[in-house]
């Protein structure tokens, strides 16, 4: 069964076509990597899949809900870890979790043990009453992952979850995610610039460039099709070697300017 079904998805910002008529699907229980150079349309696509951005054209179904017409049902079906930190640093780890649980309509008797379980899973239970502004980047990330799982989502979106983290933390985080995927059948949709991470963890990969999907398949298939030895080489063979004009940061703030400005 497909848990995510994207058909002819398009997003235009004025004349700029950020996402250009893409279609793909993700099977339930899959770990799916969404790869592409900076400014290729990864984050824009994720925002549309997660009800944060209107679609210009096309349909997205997530857990059999239409993201445009059933936003709240869709929102209950997924958890997300954003590219940029999104925890309230004036609140403690526990308060951040509780805030999330209440917004997702959970009962106290259910969310209390769940928060404890998850904070223990990411090794933050001892720091539950510390303000998150004192947390390191890795701790914040772990807290965000725990928070994303709090309402028992069917799909977990991870937008560059390991960006800027040391190898130890990255390894740790991927071990949790792999475990959850195996034990609870959680579908994972992630983006990354670390190709070996995608190679190691993803069941299937889609490569997006200039707003279009240019290849999909298992990491092994992509390597065979491009006659390369590593996923990194396959990626470079598919998307070319020149450096993209827009760095992720600049691209984002430009996009923001456009969006907020309206």
């Amino acid at each position: 069964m497909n848990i995510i079904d994207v058909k002819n998805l398009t997003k235009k910002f004025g004349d700029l076509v950020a996402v250009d008529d893409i279609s793909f699907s993700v099977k339930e229980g899959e770990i799916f990597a969404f790869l592409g150079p900076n400014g290729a349309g990864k984050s824009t696509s994720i925002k549309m899949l997660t009800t944060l951005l209107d679609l210009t054209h096309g349909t997205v179904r997530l857990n059999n809900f239409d993201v445009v017409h059933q936003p709240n049902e869709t929102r209950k079906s997924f958890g997300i870890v954003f590219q940029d930190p999104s925890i309230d640093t004036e609140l403690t780890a526990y308060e951040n979790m509780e805030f999330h649980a209440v917004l997702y309509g959970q009962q106290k008797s259910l969310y209390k043990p769940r928060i404890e379980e998850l904070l223990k899973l990411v090794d933050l239970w001892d720091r539950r009453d510390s303000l998150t502004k004192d947390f390191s980047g890795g701790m914040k990330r772990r807290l965000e992952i725990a928070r994303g799982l709090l309402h028992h989502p069917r799909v977990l979106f991870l937008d560059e979850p390991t960006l800027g983290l040391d190898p130890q933390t990255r390894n740790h985080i991927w071990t949790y995610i792999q475990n959850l995927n195996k034990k609870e059948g959680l579908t994972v949709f992630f983006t990354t610039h670390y190709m070996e991470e995608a190679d190691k963890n993803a069941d299937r990969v889609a490569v997006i460039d200039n707003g279009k999907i240019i290849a999909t398949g298992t990491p092994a298939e992509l390597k065979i099709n491009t006659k390369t030895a590593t996923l990194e080489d396959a990626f470079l063979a598919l998307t070319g070697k020149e450096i993209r004009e827009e760095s992720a940061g600049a691209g984002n703030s430009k996009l923001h300017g456009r969006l907020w400005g309206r």
Partner: protein
Amino acid sequence: MDDFGEGKVVRFACKSIFWRLRKRDGARLEENRSSDLSVLQKILLQANLTKNFMKTIYILWLRQLKRYTRSKQRMFASLAQPILFLLAFGFGFGSVFAKAGEGNYMQFLASGIICMAIMFTAVFSGIEIIWDKQFGFLKETLVAPVSRFNIMLGRTLGGATVAVIQGIIVLLITLLVGFRPMWSGFFLAFIFMFLLSLFFTAFGTMLASKLDDMQSFPLIINFLVMPLFFLSGALFPLTGLPGVFTTIVRFNPLSYAVDGIRGALTGTTSFGFGLDALVLTAVTLICLWIGAEFFKRIQA
């Protein structure tokens, strides 16, 4: 927070169903029981939705309050300006005011300074949305399965509560420097303080939903908030102003809040409580509505 109003709703539902059952005779009671059950289910569902609605409002409200109590610098910084105005104007112009035959200036000024503290805190609270945008927390609330209106309302109530607390702190400070209010008017003053807080928080939210970054913030303070403050009758009486100013003052919502609070605390109003309350309620509702509309359209 577990039995948030649900108990009341359910009790009411049971009572009304019991009342309906009693009205019927025994024979009809049997066949109608199933329909009564579905009515009960519907009411329970409604009660559950209401409970969730209240809970999300509560948690958003609580977040604003926690942020306020934890940021001591912010609390003091937003008290410093009103206190400065209170002392500088209060003692500086006190004698001139008395010589002009207007009486005790502190009696006049205190209400204006309370309004000032409330207005600034409330606008800041509303504008905090920009902060949440920049630090990413806004996205967390925007992907939650809660209506945008609900989020906006919870935040606004939280911000307004913080502003009222600041207003009360300033009221206590004015007592130290010689303000003698009529305590009988305190409840009425409190209502005006709350309306004023709600209005400016919603106003701040409205602005912040349209703004991009903190750079535009000084512009808002200098070109919107300060003029509103100076032309509201907070610092000087509105009698004898040039015609243009009288008109501006009349169109300034803050004037009605200053007048209402001053009226409640000292017994003299220029517009009358009725008009004050009417204008403030109207502009608050309009701002809440526009704020909610703008907030709904925020895309991340």
